[in-house]
C-alpha cells in the first residue's frame, strides 16, 4: 500500500560518480602469499609484506538518515591472496571499542564490498548492479569468544523468575523468542563474525543462504585490525570474481558504535581499484 520512494537512487549514483572523481585514493595491491587456508588472522606475519593504502572515509549523507560527524575518517588497508582465498585487512583508530548491545548502545562494525555486476554503485550497489558485502560485527565476535550474552551479562543485578523456554517444549517456546525464533541472521552469528551478503541498493542488503566469508578482529592499543576473507573463485552467480592477475574494485564502510553509528549512519569510501597479483 505504501510506495517506496525511488527518487534517491539516481542521486546516489551521481554522487558516487562525483565523489569517485573527487577522491584521490590509491589502488590496493593484493599480494600473493604462501599462507594456507582462509586469510583471516589479523596478526599473521604476511600482512607486513603487503603495501598499506590509506583510504579516506566520508560520512554517508546521500540517503536519509545521516550522521555527518563520523568518528573514522581514515582506514589503512592491506590485501593478500594465496590463490584460493583473498584477504583484506582494515585498520582504524577507535579509542572506545563496543561489542555489547543494550537498547542505547551500538556495536563497532566494518564492511568491505566487491562488485558482482558492473557498473555498480559504491553505496551498496543498485538495481542491476549487484554487490557482495562482507560485514564484520564486534558483537558477533564477542558471542563467538564468550558465548551469547544472558540477562546477567547485560544487567548484572537483573532478577528474572522464569522464561517460557524453561517450561515449554522447543516448539511452543519458539513463539516467545522473537527474531531468534525466525532465525534472523543478525540475531546470532553463524560460525564467523563476518556476514556474507548481497545488495542491490539501499535497504536491500540480504544475508546469503550459504556463508563463504570469514574474518576476525583484534582491538589493541586503540586500534581495530579486522581481516576479511573469501574464496577468489565464484561458486554461485552472486559471488564476486577475484582471480589472480585480474583487477576489480573494493569499497569500505565503518561504524563506530560509541559514536552512535549504525545502518545508514556510517563512514564509507568510494570504489578503490584492486590489483590482484598473479
Amino acid at each position, binding site marked *: 500500500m505504501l510506495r517506496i520512494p525511488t527518487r534517491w537512487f539516481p542521486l546516489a549514483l551521481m554522487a558516487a560518480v562525483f565523489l569517485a572523481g573527487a577522491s584521490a585514493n590509491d589502488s590496493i595491491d593484493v599480494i600473493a602469499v604462501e599462507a594456507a587456508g582462509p586469510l583471516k588472522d589479523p596478526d599473521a606475519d604476511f600482512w607486513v609484506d603487503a603495501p598499506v593504502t590509506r583510504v579516506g572515509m566520508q560520512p554517508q*549523507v546521500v540517503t*536519509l*538518515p545521516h550522521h555527518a560527524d563520523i568518528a573514522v575518517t581514515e582506514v589503512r588497508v592491506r590485501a593478500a591472496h594465496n590463490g584460493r582465498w583473498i584477504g583484506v585487512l582494515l585498520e582504524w583508530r577507535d579509542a572506545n571499542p563496543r561489542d555489547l548491545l543494550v537498547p542505547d*548502545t551500538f556495536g563497532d562494525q566494518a564492511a568491505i564490498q566487491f562488485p558482482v555486476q558492473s557498473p555498480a554503485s559504491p553505496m551498496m550497489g543498485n538495481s542491476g548492479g549487484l554487490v557482495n558485502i562482507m560485514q564484520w560485527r564486534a558483537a558477533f565476535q564477542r558471542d563467538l569468544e564468550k558465548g551469547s550474552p544472558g540477562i546477567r551479562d547485560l544487567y548484572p543485578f537483573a532478577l528474572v523468575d522464569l522464561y*517460557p523456554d524453561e517450561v515449554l517444549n522447543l516448539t511452543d517456546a519458539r513463539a516467545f523468542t*522473537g527474531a531468534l525464533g525466525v*532465525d534472523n541472521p543478525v540475531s546470532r552469528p553463524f560460525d564467523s563474525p563476518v556476514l556474507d551478503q548481497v545488495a542491490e541498493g539501499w*535497504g536491500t542488503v540480504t544475508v546469503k543462504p550459504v556463508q563463504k566469508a570469514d574474518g576476525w578482529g583484534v582491538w589493541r592499543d586503540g586500534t581495530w585490525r579486522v581481516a576479511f576473507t573469501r574464496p577468489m573463485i565464484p561458486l554461485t552467480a552472486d559471488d564476486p570474481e577475484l582471480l589472480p592477475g585480474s583487477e576489480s574494485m573494493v569499497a569500505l564502510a565503518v561504524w563506530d558504535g560509541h559514536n552512535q553509528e549504525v545502518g545508514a549512519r556510517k563512514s564509507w569510501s568510494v570504489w578503490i581499484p584492486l590489483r590482484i597479483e598473479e
Partner: protein
Amino acid sequence: MPNVYNWQIGREMPYPFEGARPTKQFAMIFDTNKCIACQTCTVACKTTWTSGRGQEYMLWNNVETKPYGYYPLGWDVTILDQLGVQRMNGPVYSGKTLFEAAPAGEIVLGYQPTDEDYANPNIGEDDSTSEMAQGVWMRMPHMQWMYYLPRICNHCTYPACLSACPRQVIYKRPEDGIVLLDQHRCRGYRECVKGCPYKKVFFNPMTRVSEKCIGCYPAIENNRQTQCTITCIGKIRLQGFLATPEAAREDNPMDYIIHGAKIAKPLYPQFGLEPNTYYIPPVHVPPPYLRQMFGHGVEEAIAIYRRASDDRKLLAAMLLFGATNEIIHHFSIEGNRVIGYDEKRAELVRVPMTEPTYIREAYDARFDAYRTNVT
C-alpha cells in the same frame, strides 16, 4: 515528499510515503475516567506476548500516571520540548508536525531514550501535582490532580517508525491498519525506536532487533478484541475499527463516539502521525494540560461526556465497553437494551441501558437480623 491528508490536524502535511488508507483501521478508545491503573492490561499483554528473553522491561501496553509518570522516562515531555512551542488554537493545526520539524539529515524529529529510561516503568505512579492544604476541598477542575493514561502502539495512519526505517521493515497491513515489524528482516538500527514519538517500538538486546505491539493480530483476524481490552476489569476500553470522518457510520460505536459525539480524542495529534488510539479525557484535569495532550476540542468533549445520559445513542455505545470479547461493528437500541453486532450483523451482546435496581429491606425476617447495606 508527498503530501497526505491528516484529519486530526485538519490539513495536509508532508509524509515520506504516498497516503493510502487501509480497508479497515484498527482503533481503540480508552475512558480515562474509569481507569484505576490496576495494570491488568499490562500483565495480560506481558504474559501473552513479551515474557521472553530480552523482553524483561519491554511493555507493549503500559499504564502511567500523568503528569509525572512516564514509560520510558520523559517520553512525551522530551519530544514536546524538542518540538518547541507550537500553535493549535483551532481545528486546523498551524504548528509543525514531527515530519515538518525534522532536522537536516533526518526523516522525522525524534530521540533515542537511554537504557535507564526503561528501568522504572512505575515512576511517578499515583503522584499528584502537589499536596492538598489542610481544610481545602476539591473544585472542578481539581487544583491538585493526576490521572491514569493507558497506552499501546497507536497503529498510526502515518507511522513515524515505518517512515524512519531505512529497510522498510515496518509495514501497515492494508486489511486492518495494524503496524507490524518484520522480525526476520530487521537489523536493529533502532531508527524506529528513535522516530516513534510514543516510544512504542523497543529494542530487544537478546535478539538484537526491534519489537513492537502487534495489535493482537491473531485475535483481530478471528474477530476478537485485543488481550488488553478483554481483560480490562474496569471495562474502560473498546477496540474496533474506525472510519475517516467523512465515511463514519452512526451505527459503528467507534465512529459514533469519535466522529459523532466527538468525546474521544487522539494522543498528541500535533505530532502528525494520526494515531488510532483515542482517549475520553479526564473530567477533573485543567484544560490547558489536556489541550496539549489531546488537541483541540477537549473541553467540548468533556462537556458532552458529562451529559452522556442525555444522548441515548452515546450512552448505548459507551455501554458496549467490556461487554463482549468479540469486535463490535454495529450497534442499535431496542427498548432498554443496546445490542452489539458483528460484521455480518449477527448479534453478539445485549446490555441493559439502565441497570436494574433492587431495594433490600434493612430487616431480614428470615434470619431475624438487620443488614448494613455495603454496596
